[in-house]
């Protein structure tokens, strides 16, 4: 048996788009095979084909040498193929054990029997060092733990071909190392792994071979040890990329945003806890301050408290010296604050409005765009055309396009354009490049730096370590709601930053000291 999986000449079309165009992917037994490509390259579609969620128009699939027809996840599972999805497929109010057995329940007299399942899960978690509490609810455990549940789900089903879809996006560097080790252990036990990612370091660290896709097309398969990162990167993007951001030294001016002793309390099942814990910091004109941390350490709550989308239990927010603590969102919007929100679909856009309407989302009521309560549609359209031109926002019907139908990258560009055009004193950019391809990332990074150079203060919240290191002039590390370190990106390594983010370095008082820096 040469290959455990052979996906040969797979073509999958959607209306208006060929998501997979004659793609071939072959995985050898006992190897870790990386599938590399940008967002939108067709990786997820290819995997959905493998799992029978989509039927390809052309091509065939062989598993362990036999041609198979996969009609759904059950078929894939029967062939021993399992997957850890990028967005975990876990039911939040089920226990770990319930999630693992879902779809594979053992019953007796019609009733679910958990005892055997529990025994098997405990055995598996000991064998592969995947400790989790089987009776914990998913909503109560960390993302890292949830990933272990996903891995256990596959092992419980006796899968021997394991697919990891962007598994490291939500993990700390330390957790990533652990995951890499788990993957090596799994391969050592005879499993084969297909590892989907766009991170070259991880491929270098763990993969044996790598298949590259770009814009729905098959580019090639390489031996990882014989190929350098630059070459793989070029295969992925189709041109040479320069992921380091060109920027000059920051020239911080006066303080624009000051956050003093901010706390956000959350009450969950009777326990009250500070999800944002006595945070204080300042952001000055002409600097990019980055809040780095693992997802779910209070970043969202902190930003929401500053913008007014969420509440706060104590503290003060000053913008240009003016107390904004109790001011409305609209007041902040119109007094120098811009916000590129974390979730562009939830907060950033009214998806069923057209592009023009979205580009004036915080300004439609201003005299510029309305008179006596009536909208000046011509002015709104004019303004929209200006932004579309200036920021190269691409869409089917220009300003009349319903934003729902736009690509993620262009939706994000629209938001960035809107927020920057307000010429803010402080720009809060929360994960501004999430889910975008390299071109769009480069573009948005450039815009942020340009905005900094034109004198805005920028507060960047990011989970991507590369982005943090490349873009920021100062790094504040947030851990369990508290600022645990105030770092200079030039003087810190990624590994060190990871330790701070994981809470194993730094002290909770760092944020408070910062306030006294002056």
């Amino acid at each position, binding site marked *: 048996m040469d290959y455990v999986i052979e996906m040969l000449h797979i073509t999958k079309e959607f209306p208006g788009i060929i998501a997979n165009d004659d793609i071939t992917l072959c995985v050898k037994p006992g190897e870790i095979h990386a599938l590399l490509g940008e967002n939108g390259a067709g990786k997820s579609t290819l995997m959905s084909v493998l799992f029978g*969620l989509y039927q390809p128009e052309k091509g065939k699939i062989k598993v362990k040498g036999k041609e198979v027809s996969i009609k759904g*996840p059950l078929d894939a599972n029967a062939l021993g193929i399992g*997957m850890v999805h990028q967005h975990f*497929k876990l*039911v939040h109010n*089920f226990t770990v054990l*319930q999630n693992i057995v*879902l*779809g594979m329940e053992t019953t007796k007299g019609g009733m679910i029997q958990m005892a055997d399942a529990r025994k098997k899960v405990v055995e598996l978690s000991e064998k592969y060092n995947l400790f989790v509490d089987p009776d914990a609810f998913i909503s109560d455990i960390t993302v890292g733990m949830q990933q272990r549940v996903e891995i256990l789900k596959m092992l419980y089903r006796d899968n021997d071909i394991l697919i990891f879809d962007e598994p490291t996006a939500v993990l700390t560097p330390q957790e990533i190392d652990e995951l890499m080790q788990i993957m090596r252990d799994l391969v050592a036990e005879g499993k084969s792994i297909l590892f989907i990612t766009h991170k070259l370091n991880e491929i270098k660290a763990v993969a044996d071979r790598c298949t590259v896709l770009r814009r729905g097309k098959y580019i090639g398969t390489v031996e990882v040890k014989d190929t350098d990162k630059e070459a793989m990167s070029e295969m992925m993007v189709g041109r040479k990329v320069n992921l380091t951001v060109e920027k000059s030294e920051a020239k911080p001016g006066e303080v624009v945003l000051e956050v003093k002793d901010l706390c956000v309390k959350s009450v969950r099942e009777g326990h009250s806890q500070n999800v944002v814990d006595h945070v204080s910091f300042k952001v000055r004109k002409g600097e990019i301050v980055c809040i780095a941390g693992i997802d779910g350490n209070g970043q969202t709550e902190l930003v929401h408290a500053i913008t007014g989308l969420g509440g706060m239990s104590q503290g003060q927010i000053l913008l240009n010296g003016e107390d904004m603590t109790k001011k409305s969102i609209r007041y902040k919007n119109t007094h120098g604050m811009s916000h590129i929100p974390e979730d562009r679909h939830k907060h950033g856009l009214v998806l069923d409005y057209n592009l023009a309407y979205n580009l004036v989302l915080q300004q439609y009521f201003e005299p510029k765009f309305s008179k006596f309560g009536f909208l000046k549609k011509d002015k709104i359209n004019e303004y929209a055309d200006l932004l579309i031109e200036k920021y190269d926002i691409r869409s089917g019907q220009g300003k009349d396009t319903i934003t729902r139908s736009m690509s993620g990258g262009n939706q994000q560009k629209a938001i960035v354009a809107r927020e920057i055009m307000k010429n803010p004193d402080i720009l809060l950019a929360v994960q501004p490049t999430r889910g975008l391809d390299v071109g769009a990332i480069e573009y948005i990074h450039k815009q942020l730096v340009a905005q900094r150079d034109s004198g805005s203060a920028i507060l960047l919240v990011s989970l991507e370590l590369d982005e943090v290191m490349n873009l920021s002039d100062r790094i504040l590390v947030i851990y369990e709601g508290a600022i645990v370190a105030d770092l200079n990106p030039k003087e810190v390594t990624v590994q060190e930053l990871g330790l701070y983010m994981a809470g194993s370095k730094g002290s909770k008082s760092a944020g408070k000291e910062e306030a006294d820096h002056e």
Partner: protein
Amino acid sequence: MSVVYFIFQQTMFFAIPLLIVALGGMFSERSGVVNIALEGIMTMGAFTSILFLNLTGKNMSGQGQLLIAIVIAMATGVVFSLFHAYAAINMKADQTISGTALNMFAPAFAIFVARIIQGVQQVQFSNTFRIESVPVLGSIPVVGDLFFKNTYITTYIGIGILILSAVVLYKTKFGLRLRACGEHPQAADAAGVNVYRMQYAGVMISGALGGLGGLVFVVPTSTNFNATVSGYGFLALAVLIFGQWKPGRILGASLFFGLTKAVAAAYSGIPFLNNMGIPSYLYKMIPYIATLIVLIFTSKNSQAPRASGVPYDKGAR
């Protein structure tokens, strides 16, 4: 003491149909489909089964006839609910719209058919189903008076459905899968659960219980059916929300509404309430006002199934 027994028995007449229908709604919503059509489903179930009672009234009577009527009511509910299931699941239609259409269709259909068959829209039936006292059990002091006198077999069926629902939802494979579909259908799908099939099952169960609820509502409180279940389907939705989609709490909620309804219907027979001189309309309004007030206190932390009302699309991730 006899007043207490009387109110309790009356409460059961109102609470049991609410309980049954709300449990039906629970299965539907727990599978991820909002079923606002319960009112229409009740109407249809009541219509066909009462029509059966009417047509066989000359030759049949008693519990046997009632049991056949129950089967007919449930079957009607299932068939009718399939229209909602098809719209909601296959056509990914707006579930509120399709439910509304069913609610409009049912009474019109009932009147139309009743007129064709018998000329008038009211469907009469003779009530031969009341159980004066259950043998042996009825003579137990207190408990016998409360639960086993002046009752209907449907009361016990309702309680049986409650217990069965709780067991099915929490202890069986089916229940686990159903709940997964209502919370996170993508997770269920990835685990190999056929989401569409589970949702069909959920809606069909709500159809069966809704249809049954229609019959159970009409039998103890009337001797004819006039193409309406007086908003009980909607009240059952409120019970479902008040009951936070959980069987035990749904029971509590139905008893609460049953009690307010019973008082409204029977206050004139209760000397104490009748002497207070409160206008009858106030009693009629109390169940609805109470619902509003209760909802104010229970809606903040809604535990609605997360995916309920959102059409599940396999392709969307």
